[in-house]
């Protein structure tokens, strides 16, 4: 295990000590047992195949070791994570029916307002369960399905499609935390867009983790028919508690021939979150997947959306920004496999480290032997705001034929004194000059986001920057 110098805040031990007594029996059983997993199946009324799938995943989870690379997971003790928190309400299709305390949380986050103004459909998950799901009538009429995963599995019309795709792209054998996900997943969204249907306005799922020491394991499955077009937005947040929370979601995206999917995420989990999320897209001939990813929250993140360019002329674009402040170790990036000829990938990332925060950009670009005529470009830029922080760049390229055009550029440094002076000479204060340069640095990402999110992101940056300038 690589021991990096990090300024990670200690998790409050006294809270753990109390839990030790309460959960002594859980500890003996290593936190997660076939019995607990079976209870989840009972409560969810899982079909038989899903029951078996969960148990199989649990067996895999118990076999796979933790990763021997990446940020330390020492603060995460699975025996102390309450993996399943069931909120006190069934799912609603109307905000008025959602209980007040939960509704107020989402109101504060601006979700219902955004739904009225600019979204085609909204799903809201509170801890382990979806509490709200709604989609506009005109979108429904196009044949678009947007529902929660549990409903999709139980719906006789959708069930075969779910079963055919569920964790086929991201199998539980992939790594330890996706095996965990397979065993205890709960909530999340299912989206199906029929062939040649273009959804003009975005769908959004919002994930809120509220219970202290809890885990959220939502599963998002999106299937686009041939020539379909969709923008899906995912937002995540949680209040800050003194105990470690865990998010091990899984996103599977199937992009059929000539279809286009844009998947945008603004992640602002609280800074006690272990965000070990797995996202993957399979892109058929002529299809496009576009990832827009902003990582601002979490204590530790492992996040590398992967694109498998399976069909000829398929494409992926990844635009990402990561901002790590005090106590944060955010390991983010992207993976792409060029598995077919004439495929194209473009990865463009920015990272900002301050106040002892650690950013790691990690990526892999693989071009397989039969994938000739491929192009790939990687560009990553890192900004260091002080000498207490850390920024590492760890890209890998594996190229297995000669008919390729692969470029990679990486840059690291701080805000130039000359640039600050230039702005100051036009009357702008030093703090504002720095904030302006950092916002400008992030602008290529902001302009890819829907405007409300771009504003939110710039506010997050401004908020972070206020503490950064002495």
């Amino acid at each position, binding site marked *: 295990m690589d021991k990096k110098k990090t300024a990670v805040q200690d998790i409050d031990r006294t809270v753990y000590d109390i839990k030790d007594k309460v959960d002594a029996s859980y500890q003996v059983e290593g936190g997660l047992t076939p019995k607990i997993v079976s209870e989840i199946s009972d409560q969810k009324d899982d079909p038989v195949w899903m029951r078996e799938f969960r148990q199989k995943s649990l067996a895999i989870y118990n076999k796979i070791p933790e990763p021997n690379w990446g940020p330390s997971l020492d603060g995460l003790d699975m025996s102390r994570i309450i993996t399943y928190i069931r909120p006190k309400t069934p799912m609603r299709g109307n905000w008025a029916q959602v209980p007040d305390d939960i509704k107020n949380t989402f109101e504060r986050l601006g979700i219902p307002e955004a739904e009225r103004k600019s979204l085609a459909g909204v799903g809201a998950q509170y801890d382990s369960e979806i509490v709200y799901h709604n989609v506009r009538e005109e979108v429904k009429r196009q044949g678009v399905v947007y529902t929660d995963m549990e409903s999709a599995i139980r719906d006789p019309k959708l069930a075969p499609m779910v079963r055919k795709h569920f964790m086929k792209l991201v199998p539980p054998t992939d790594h330890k935390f996706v095996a965990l996900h397979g065993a205890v997943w709960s909530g999340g969204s299912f989206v199906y867009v029929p062939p040649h249907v273009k959804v003009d306005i975005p769908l959004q799922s919002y994930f809120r983790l509220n219970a202290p020491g809890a885990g959220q394991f939502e599963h998002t499955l999106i299937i686009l028919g041939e020539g379909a077009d969709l923008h899906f937005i995912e937002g995540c947040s949680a209040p800050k508690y003194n105990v470690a929370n865990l998010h091990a979601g899984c996103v599977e995206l199937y992009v059929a021939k000539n279809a286009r999917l844009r998947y945008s995420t603004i992640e602002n989990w609280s800074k006690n979150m272990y965000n070990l999320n797995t996202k993957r897209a399979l892109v058929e001939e002529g299809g496009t997947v576009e990832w827009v990813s902003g990582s601002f929250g979490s204590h530790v993140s492992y996040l590398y959306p992967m694109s498998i360019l399976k069909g000829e002329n398929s494409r992926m674009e990844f635009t990402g920004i990561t901002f790590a402040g005090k106590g944060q170790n955010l390991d983010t990036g992207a993976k792409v496999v060029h598995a077919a000829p004439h495929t194209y990938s473009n990865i463009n990332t920015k990272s900002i480290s301050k106040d002892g925060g650690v950013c790691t950009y990690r990526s892999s670009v693989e071009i397989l032997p039969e994938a000739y005529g491929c192009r790939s470009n990687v560009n990553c830029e890192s900004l260091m705001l002080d000498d207490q922080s850390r920024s590492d760049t760890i890209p890998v390229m594996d190229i297995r034929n000669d008919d390729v055009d692969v470029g990679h550029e990486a840059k690291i440094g701080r805000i130039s004194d000359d640039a600050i002076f230039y702005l100051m*000479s*036009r009357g702008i204060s030093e703090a504002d*000059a720095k904030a302006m340069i950092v916002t400008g640095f992030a602008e290529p990402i902001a302009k890819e986001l829907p405007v409300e999110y771009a504003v939110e992101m710039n506010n997050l940056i401004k908020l972070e920057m206020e503490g950064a300038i002495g």
Partner: protein
Amino acid sequence: MLLEVKNLKVSVDGTVILNGLNLSVDRGEVHVLMGPNGAGKSTLVNTIMGHPQYKVEAGTILFDGEDITHAPANERAKAGLFLSFQNPEEVPGVTLESFMRTSRVAVTGKPVKLFAYKKELAEKMKALDMDAEYASRYLNVGFSGGEKKKSEILQMLMEDPKLAILDETDSGLDVDAVRIVSKGVENYKNRDNALLIITHNTKILEALTVDYVHVLMDGRIVRTGDGRLVDEINRNGFQQISAAAV
């Protein structure tokens, strides 16, 4: 007096560049600063503007009666100083227009009336023969040398400072661009403000009445004369000027 530089001694990374320099500029005046490469011209104007890399070892800089020797650059801008940079910085992600607006709010301390501002900007850009599209481009990013200089003059016109310092604003420009930039400078100049111009070229001076010419060599002003000194330098070069001064 608008600007008074007294006995200024400046070093960069421990090397003394300016050594006891004196210079006074009053309202309504046009001053030209000439001198061979490496004489310290850019050092002087960057020090007047307050670049942190230039260390003032001794002496004072007074602007409009205030001692600004150790003031940060933005305070100097608010006081009415403007420097047109020789090589303006590129700042990705910040558009020229939003930057100038932020700058005006910072300098004046008052909110900007959007409609009037846009109209004023459009007029001034037109006068400089600048495509309106430049306003929405990132600050100096991908601008050619000439476009950068025009963007500097545009900012000068929008800011309307008490003293504008032009650091080789005319170098590297083609004939047409020099004519346009000179026109901009001419429009800026009035009885109440002042100009300090560093140039190797005389084109930019043609439309202006030059009051004083200073020759800077070895960290000091070795000679000051009126506009005719420019011709003398062009004829004889700096060496003779300095020999004559001794």
